[in-house]
C-alpha cells in the first residue's frame, strides 16, 4: 500500500457554466479516518464520485490505492467500499439478499456457508440482524442507511468512501455509526463526508474542508485547529471603546466578538498567532479605563474552525 490511500491533484469539474470543483488537491493517509467537510454544494459528493470513477474530472487526476482513477478503476473499486449519498438499492432484495449480492460482486468473495457467516457478521455489526429478512422498500431512512454501510463494508475493503453516512440517523443510530467507523479505522482507510462536526472531532484523525470546490484546510485534526488560531474569553467592565479599537488594529487578532452580560461585557478574542498573543494580549488589556474581570483561553472546537474557514452563511 502507498503512503496515501487517496491522492488528488488539480481536480476540476464543470457542469456547463457551473464549476463544481476548482483545482482540488488532497491527500488522505492510508489507515486514517478522514472527515470531509464543507457546506452543501461545496463539491464533496462530486469529489467522491470522481474517486469512484462514476464521473470524469474536467481537469486534473487522482490516484486511489495507487491506481489512477479512470485508467484502472476496476482494480481500485475491487478494494473500495462505497456508500453514495441517499443510496438507492435494487428494490427486490431483502436486507440479507442485498448485502450478499454486494459481496458477490467482489473478486475472491467467500462462498456458501462462509458467505452466510460473513453477511450475518456484517448485519450484526450494522445493527440489522433482526431485520435481515425485511424487504428494502419497507425500511426506514435510518435502516436503509445502515444497510448502505453494511454493503460498503461487506468485502472488507482497504478504503471506505462514505457520503454522509450519518444522514437520516437518530442520535442512537448516529452514535452506532460513529463507533462503527472508529472500529474499522486503522487497518481500513475511511474517507467520509458529514455535516456533524462533533462526530468528526470524536473519531477522525484528519480533516479536509472544502468550499466552492476548493480545499480551504486539510491535515491532521490538531493542526487544522491550531492553524485557525485560538480563542480568549475576556470579561470587562467600564469604557471599552478604546480597547476595542486597539485590539482590532492588531494584525494577530482575527476577530473580537462582544456580548453584553448586564454591566459586564464578555469578549471572545480570536487570535491567528498564538505566540504573539500570549506576549501582547495581557499588556494590551491592562491599559485603559476599564477593569478585567475574567480572562482565559478556550479550547478551539472544530465548529469554530469550520465557521472561520467557511463562514456561517456561506452555503450556495
Amino acid at each position, binding site marked *: 500500500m502507498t503512503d496515501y490511500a487517496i491522492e488528488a491533484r488539480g481536480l476540476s469539474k464543470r457542469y456547463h457554466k457551473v464549476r463544481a470543483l476548482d483545482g482540488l488537491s488532497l491527500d488522505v493517509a492510508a489507515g486514517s479516518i478522514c472527515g470531509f467537510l464543507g457546506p452543501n454544494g461545496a463539491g464533496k459528493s462530486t469529489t467522491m464520485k470522481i474517486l469512484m470513477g462514476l464521473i*470524469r474530472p474536467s481537469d486534473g487526476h487522482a490516484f486511489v490505492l495507487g491506481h489512477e482513477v479512470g485508467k484502472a478503476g476496476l482494480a481500485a473499486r475491487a478494494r473500495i467500499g462505497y456508500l453514495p449519498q441517499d443510496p438507492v438499492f435494487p428494490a*427486490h432484495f431483502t436486507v440479507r439478499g442485498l448485502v450478499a449480492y454486494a459481496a458477490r*460482486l467482489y473478486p475472491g468473495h467467500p462462498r456458501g456457508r462462509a458467505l452466510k457467516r460473513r453477511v450475518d457478521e456484517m448485519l450484526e455489526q450494522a445493527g440489522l440482524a433482526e431485520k435481515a429478512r425485511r424487504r428494502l422498500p419497507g425500511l426506514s431512512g435510518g435502516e436503509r442507511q445502515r444497510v448502505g454501510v453494511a454493503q460498503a463494508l461487506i468485502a472488507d475493503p482497504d478504503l471506505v468512501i462514505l457520503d454522509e453516512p450519518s444522514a437520516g440517523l437518530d442520535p442512537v443510530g448516529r452514535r452506532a455509526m460513529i463507533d462503527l467507523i472508529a472500529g474499522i479505522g486503522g487497518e481500513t482507510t475511511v474517507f467520509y463526508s458529514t455535516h456533524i462536526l462533533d462526530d468528526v472531532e470524536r473519531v477522525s484523525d484528519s480533516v479536509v474542508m472544502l468550499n466552492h470546490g476548493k480545499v480551504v484546510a486539510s491535515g491532521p485534526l490538531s493542526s487544522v485547529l491550531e492553524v485557525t488560531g485560538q480563542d480568549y474569553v475576556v470579561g470587562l467592565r467600564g469604557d471599552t471603546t478604546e480597547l476595542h479599537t486597539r485590539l482590532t488594529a492588531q494584525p494577530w487578532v482575527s476577530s473580537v466578538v462582544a456580548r453584553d452580560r448586564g454591566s459586564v461585557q464578555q469578549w471572545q478574542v480570536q487570535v491567528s498567532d498564538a505566540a504573539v498573543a500570549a506576549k501582547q494580549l495581557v499588556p494590551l488589556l491592562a491599559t485603559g479605563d476599564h477593569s478585567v474581570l475574567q480572562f482565559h483561553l478556550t479550547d478551539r472546537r472544530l465548529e469554530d474552525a469550520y465557521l472561520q474557514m467557511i463562514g456561517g452563511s456561506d452555503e450556495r
Partner: protein
Amino acid sequence: MNAEATALRTSATGTWGVLRGELQRWLGRRGLFHLVLWLVVIEWILYTSVATENQPFGYLGFETLINILVIFPVMAGMVLTAAAVCGDYHDGTTGWVLGKPVPRGGYVAASLAGLWLGLAVTTIVVPGLVAYWWLPKVEPYRFVTPEAPALRRFLFALGVLTVILAFFMAVAAFLSIVIRRRGVVVAIGAWLLLMLRTPLLPYADWMDYTPARLIRTDLAPGGWSEITEYIHDVPFDAMPAVLGTLALAVALVAGAILVFRRLEF
C-alpha cells in the same frame, strides 16, 4: 497472478454477480408474477380468438399463437428494458452498482441477458408450450389446427421468437441509454415493430437479413409468416434473417455499451 488476469477475474466476477442478481429476481416473485400474467393473457387471447364460435378471424390456431408470441413479448420486453435502464439511471441504482468492481460493459450485458432470459421463459417458452399442449385438443369450432406441428419444429420456432425478442430489447436498450426517456423509447420501439411487421413499409431485398423477414405478415388469412410456415412443414429458408437479427441485436448492445461507458452517474 498478473495484472491482466486479475482484471479479467474482477470483470468476470462482477459481471456474473450482476447476472446472478438478475436471475435471482426472476426466480422469485417477479418470475411468478410474469409467468401467471402472460399465461393468463396469452392463453385467454388465443382461446377467445381461435376456439370460440364467435371468433371473427379466419386464422389458424398456430398462426395466431405465433403472432401473439411476437407482439406481446416484444412489447413487454421493450417496456421492461426501458423501465430498467431509464429507471435505474434516474433513481441512482446504476450508480450504486457501478461503485462496485463491475465493468460498465458487463453491467449492461448481464442486466440485459438476465431480463431477456426471464422474459423469454415467461412470455414465450412456457406460454408457447402450454398452447402447444391444449390447442389441438380444443373443440375445433372453426379454423383451429387439427393436429399439433412437430415438437422439434415448434421448439425451433420458439427459439427464433426469442431472437426477435432479443433484437427489440437491444433496440430499447440502445435508445434508453441514448435518450433516457422511457415513454419515447417505447413509442419508437412500437413504431418500429409496426413498420417491420406490416406491409406499411415497402419490402426491400436487404430486409431479408432483418427481423422484418421473420415477423412480416399480410394480416390476412393465409398470409403466414416464415415461422408459421416452418411449423407447418414448409422448409425454412429465412436463416440469414435469424442470423442477421442476432447480429443486429449484438451490434445494438455493443453500441449501447459504447454510449454507456461515457455516461456519468
